[in-house]
């Protein structure tokens, strides 16, 4: 039988027993009560009937007293007035009870003064002994409200009542009003289930005693003048008692049923269900015990003092201890040893004292003395009421895992180091530097000072001595940086030959400049590689937010600007990003902003500097030079805007603009029929490649001026690829000429020159200008001229400042002259005037020229 079935069976049994016991108890205890109640019910009924009878009488009494108090009735009684109808006058007009048979007014002498028959045939008043007795009792009344005298007349036909009230004259009873009253006893004593019959009798003590002896209930009525006898219906009241008992038992049974239902429902919830849950729990615990017994994890259960109570076979296998030999001992006393981390031991100890759960890895020692790592989880064991009674320690061997993890951590650390350091020099890389700068930016004082270092001509070392030498140089630099900077400084390698030293927080730009110079001194000291001397130079740019010029995020770019300035100013020096440099940078920045609009609005205009044929003195071409017509800045020269344009990578756009506008001028000159034989445009190597691929680049018309593109000599140094040469050829195929600009300033190789085969070579002005004073220069130019002729390339000399220059160059065999001696670069309008008014004699006065028609 299940718990549930046992429970319901017991509840049912107890319910039945309770109902039976209740019934017995109620029967036993209520019987006297019912008997008393039965008597009480009979008494109540008798009293009720008595009250009903008295109430019935009261209405007659009140009516009689009312009439007796009437003034004319009194007048009749005391003889002031004779009126035999005075009674009937009242009773025949007033509403009266049905039982009134007759009313008679007697005076003080018992004489009938007035009489009225109200029921049946009229009849005279007959003074019987009862009448006389009633009169004599009534006339003694002390006041008119005294209770009426009532007599029961046992007539042969039916009993009736005689009721008498006094007639008072100013405080004295002077007569009696007597009424015969036929009470309808059936109406007064209504049928009920308590009494069988009730009747009225004279108030005779002997009769009363006799009736009471018969078990009848006797009540005094009519102010003790009569007795009301109630004969109880014993069987009916007993039956009512039994019915009451039955009803009570039914109600109690119903109540018990409801109560037991509630009890059963609650009991099911509080006893059966928990019991079931307990059984399930027990089953579950058994399963858990089996699981624990067979678990791979080592499990120990201890008491609150951490003494072992129970352990599973896995523990024995892991530790080498038998449970039987360690039961009652503290695990910490025999499992932990010399190398066990004291911090972990303290943490475990603290958690146990605090009765909190803890997880830890800890080094244990097996019985054999072999150390092993375990992942340990200690959990307090609590009873249902929350009371903690012990601990459970679950552990498993993590020695292998731990070893792997350590290895992995070491690998990660190495990777991390690699990711953050330059493998060659061991210096932190840009990432470390950026992190530090970000940290500074988030700090309370977002300031930093740094030193940017770029080796001068490092490429040469690589090129000339090989990369190993370059690496060696870089290593030396790193060493110098490390040795000369403080430990709190961060010296990082941020590019091939670029380094940055981020000074410690608070360091000023002065300190950085000093550090830079110290480092530069060390760098400049003689070094050697594989016995070969090495000369190393470096440029330094110093910038600091503490100077109040720049925010932290512009620090590197500002240092870069200073470095650039250093390079520009001759390298191998330390340049501080001060206010003047800052102004220049700001100016460039402003220019760059204006330039973006200038490009959109095509504010760049071509200026044309004439090129004069040295032999004929005639105009043989123009070089189109870019000028920026800025609404804000006026006419800006290329040396100002080109560096900015280079930084913005928009030189090509400017070139394209100048080319387009220059060609437009050329067409205008042609239309004007003015001499405009050739026009040259400066282009970059990139522009060459773009033009070569520009399918819209039209061929140079045969009837128009020649068009040439000037390419810097340095371009050939940097970009002598086949691709570039192919591009040049494509352009040349469309009729364009190629000129080498600033020849002599670079290191163009003759071979390269031969491969390109330019149409013109423009000699750098720095070679031209000294020829008046330097024989050597003149000889050099002469050689160049010779070379030009040899390879069939025309020579253009720039920087022709004076007539002497012109004469000498012509003499030396130069083909074309260009310079301020002839004209500065001219805008379109002035160009027109220049050509229109051109006379070679103005520029070669010492020679006779034939003006061309």
């Amino acid at each position, binding site marked *: 039988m299940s718990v549930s079935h046992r429970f319901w069976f017991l509840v049912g049994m107890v319910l039945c027993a309770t109902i039976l016991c209740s019934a017995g108890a109620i029967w036993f205890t209520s019987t006297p009560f019912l008997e008393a109640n039965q008597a009480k019910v009979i008494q109540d009924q008798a009293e009720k009937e008595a009250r009903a009878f008295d109430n019935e009488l009261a209405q007659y009494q009140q009516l009689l007293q009312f009439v007796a108090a009437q*003034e004319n009735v009194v*007048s009749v009684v*005391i*003889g*002031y*007035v004779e009126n035999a109808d005075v009674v009937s006058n009242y009773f025949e007009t007033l509403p009266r009870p049905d039982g009134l048979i007759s009313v008679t007014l007697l005076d003080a002498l018992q004489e009938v003064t007035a009489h009225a028959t109200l029921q049946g045939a009229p009849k005279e008043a007959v003074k019987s002994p009862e009448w006389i007795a009633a009169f004599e009792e009534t006339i003694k009344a002390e006041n008119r409200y005294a209770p009426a005298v009532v007599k029961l007349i046992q007539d042969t036909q039916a009993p009736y009542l005689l009721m008498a009230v006094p007639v008072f*004259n*100013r405080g004295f009873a002077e007569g009696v009003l007597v009424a015969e009253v036929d009470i309808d006893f059936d109406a007064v004593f209504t049928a009920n289930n308590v009494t069988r019959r009730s009747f009225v009798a004279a108030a005779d003590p002997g009769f009363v005693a006799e009736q009471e002896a018969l078990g009848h209930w006797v009540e005094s009525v009519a102010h003790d003048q009569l007795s009301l006898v109630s004969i109880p219906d014993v069987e009916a009241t007993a039956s009512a008692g039994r019915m009451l008992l039955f009803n009570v038992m039914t109600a109690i049974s119903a109540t018990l049923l409801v109560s037991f239902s509630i009890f059963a429902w609650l009991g099911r919830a509080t006893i059966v269900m928990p019991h079931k849950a307990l059984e399930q729990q027990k089953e579950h615990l058994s399963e858990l015990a089996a699981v624990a017994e067979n678990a791979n994890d080592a499990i120990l259960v201890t008491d609150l003092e951490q003494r072992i109570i129970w352990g599973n076979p896995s523990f024995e296998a892991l530790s080498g201890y038998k449970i039987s030999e360690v039961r009652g001992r503290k695990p910490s006393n025999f499992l932990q040893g010399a190398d066990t981390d004291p911090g972990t031991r303290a943490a475990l100890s603290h958690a146990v004292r605090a009765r909190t759960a803890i997880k830890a890895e800890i080094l244990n020692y097996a019985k054999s003395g072999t150390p092993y790592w375990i992942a340990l989880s200690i959990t307090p064991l609590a009873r249902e009421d929350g009371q903690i009674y012990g601990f459970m320690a679950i552990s498993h061997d993590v020695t292998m895992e731990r070893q792997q993890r350590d290895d992995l951590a070491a690998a990660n650390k190495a990777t991390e180091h690699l990711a953050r350091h330059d493998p060659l020099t061991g210096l932190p890389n840009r990432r470390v530097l950026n992190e530090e700068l970000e940290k500074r930016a988030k700090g309370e004082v977002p300031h930093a000072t740094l030193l940017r270092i770029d080796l001068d001509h490092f490429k040469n070392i690589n090129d000339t001595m090989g990369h190993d030498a370059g690496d060696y140089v870089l290593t030396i630099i790193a060493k110098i940086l490390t040795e000369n900077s403080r430990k709190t400084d961060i010296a990082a390698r941020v590019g091939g030959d670029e380094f940055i030293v981020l000074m410690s927080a608070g360091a000023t730009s002065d300190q950085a400049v000093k550090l830079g110079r110290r480092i530069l001194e060390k760098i400049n000291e003689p070094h050697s590689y594989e016995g070969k001397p090495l000369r190393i130079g470096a440029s330094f740019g110093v910038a600091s937010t503490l100077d109040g010029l720049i925010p932290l995020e512009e620090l590197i770019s500002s240092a870069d600007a200073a470095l650039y300035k250093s390079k520009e100013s001759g390298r191998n020096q330390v340049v501080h990003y001060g206010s003047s440099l800052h102004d220049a940078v700001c100016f460039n920045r402003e220019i760059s902003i204006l330039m973006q609009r200038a490009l959109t609005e095509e504010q760049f205009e071509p200026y044309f500097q004439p090129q004069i044929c040295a032999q004929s003195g005639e105009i043989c071409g123009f070089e189109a030079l870019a000028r920026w017509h800025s609404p804000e800045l006026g006419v800006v020269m290329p040396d100002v805007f080109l560096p900015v344009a280079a930084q913005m990578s928009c030189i090509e756009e400017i070139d394209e603009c100048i080319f387009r506008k220059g060609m437009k001028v050329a067409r205008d000159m042609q239309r004007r029929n003015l001499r405009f034989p050739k026009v040259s445009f400066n282009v970059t190597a990139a522009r060459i490649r773009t033009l070569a691929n520009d399918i819209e680049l039209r061929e140079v018309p045969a009837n128009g001026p020649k068009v040439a593109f000037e390419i810097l000599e340095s371009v050939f140094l940097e970009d002598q690829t086949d691709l570039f040469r192919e591009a040049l050829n494509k352009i040349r195929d469309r009729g364009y000429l190629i000129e080498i600009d600033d020849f002599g300033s670079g290191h163009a190789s003759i071979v390269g020159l031969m491969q390109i085969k330019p149409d013109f070579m423009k000699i750098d002005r720095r070679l031209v200008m000294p020829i008046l004073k330097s024989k050597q220069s003149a000889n050099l130019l002469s050689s160049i001229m010779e070379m030009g002729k040899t390879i069939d390339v025309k020579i253009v000399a720039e920087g022709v400042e004076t007539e002497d220059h012109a004469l000498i160059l012509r003499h030396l065999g130069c083909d074309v002259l260009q310079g301020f001696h002839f004209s500065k670069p001219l805008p379109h309008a002035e160009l027109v005037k220049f050509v229109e008014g051109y006379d070679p004699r103005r520029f070669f006065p010492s020679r006779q020229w034939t003006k061309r028609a």
Partner: protein
Amino acid sequence: MLRLMLMSVIGVLGSLVPLASPADNAPVPPSEPVLEVHIDADYSIASHAAEAIESGLASALSETGYEVAGTTLKLVRRDHRANVKRSRTHMEDFLNSTNAIAMVGGMHSPPYLTHRDFINENDVLFLLPWSAGGPITRGESGGENWLFRLSVDDTKAGGYLISRAVDQAGCQAVSLILIDTGWGRANHKTLTAALDQRGMIPASTHYFDVTIGQATAKRLAEDVRRSGADCAVLLADWDNGAQVVNVLADLDQPIRTFSHWGIMGGPFAQHVTPDTRDRLDLEVLQTCGLAREMSGNAALQLALSHAKGEPTELADVPAAAGFVHGYDLGRIFVAAVAQAAETPAWDGGIGQKRDAVRLSLESLEAEVEGILGSYEKPFDAYDVSSPDAHEALGRSDLCMARFAPEGHLIHAP
């Protein structure tokens, strides 16, 4: 001469005999024959009147030591409680008695109006010191008249009251407020006749029962107001009279009220405040005892000196009219008994004695000095042609009185 002698005898005896005792406690020498005088009066409701009558009688009898011609006179109280029928019983008791010589009536007229014929037919010697009903002393033609009155006679009282109200007080409209008894109804005739003589009719006439209640009284007063009367004539006993007077005084317009003396049978003044009395300008019919007192009266002083409680003036005696009339009638009775005792009939039975006294009253030889004056032949043999033969007093004996603030009556000129 005889009168003087009698007076002197009476005076001597009065000085020798102690104060009169109450009637039922009067000392009676056992050796002498005793004749009873039954006082048929209302000792319960209108006890003041009954007591005053008895006091007046006792005072008169005490002057002879309750003894006349060797016969002791004893006063016997018979309380009829204003019940006419009980009074009849007393009469029958009287007739059954062998030593009851006379009956003295109380203030109520109804018993004697009702039983007048019985009295006359059965020879009940009746002395009436208060009851005023006119027909009482005027029996059927041809019969004997056994009722002798020394009191106000309503045949005259009505005329006197109307005369006082209309002729003296100048009333324009007179309402009649009458107790609904034979007495009241009898007075109605005389009052209306008196008004008729003046060319007037009653502004209204109101009868009330002997036990008038508050509500009935208020309705009555309202009816009087609506009638437009400025004066009222009131016939009532003391308690009903007090009830009526109190509601009349509540009217917005006060009604001057002239009352018959029926209201003096009880503590009327205690139930009607001086303000109420003044508001109604209440006057009460009296015989002229008060006027006599004012003018100095030796007989009164003598009577008072024998009276119970030794009053010094009439104001000390409640219902003084009863005392005065009782005393005066007592002295006349004593004189009549004395005169009868001289006749042979006095030796006969009680019936003969009563008749001897009756005849002596109708032919009294002695002049009797009373409070209200000297009585010379106060009564005569009765005949319908001499309706006042059994009346000791006449209209000239009537006066009006008013209430002093303290409640006693004072003469109203």
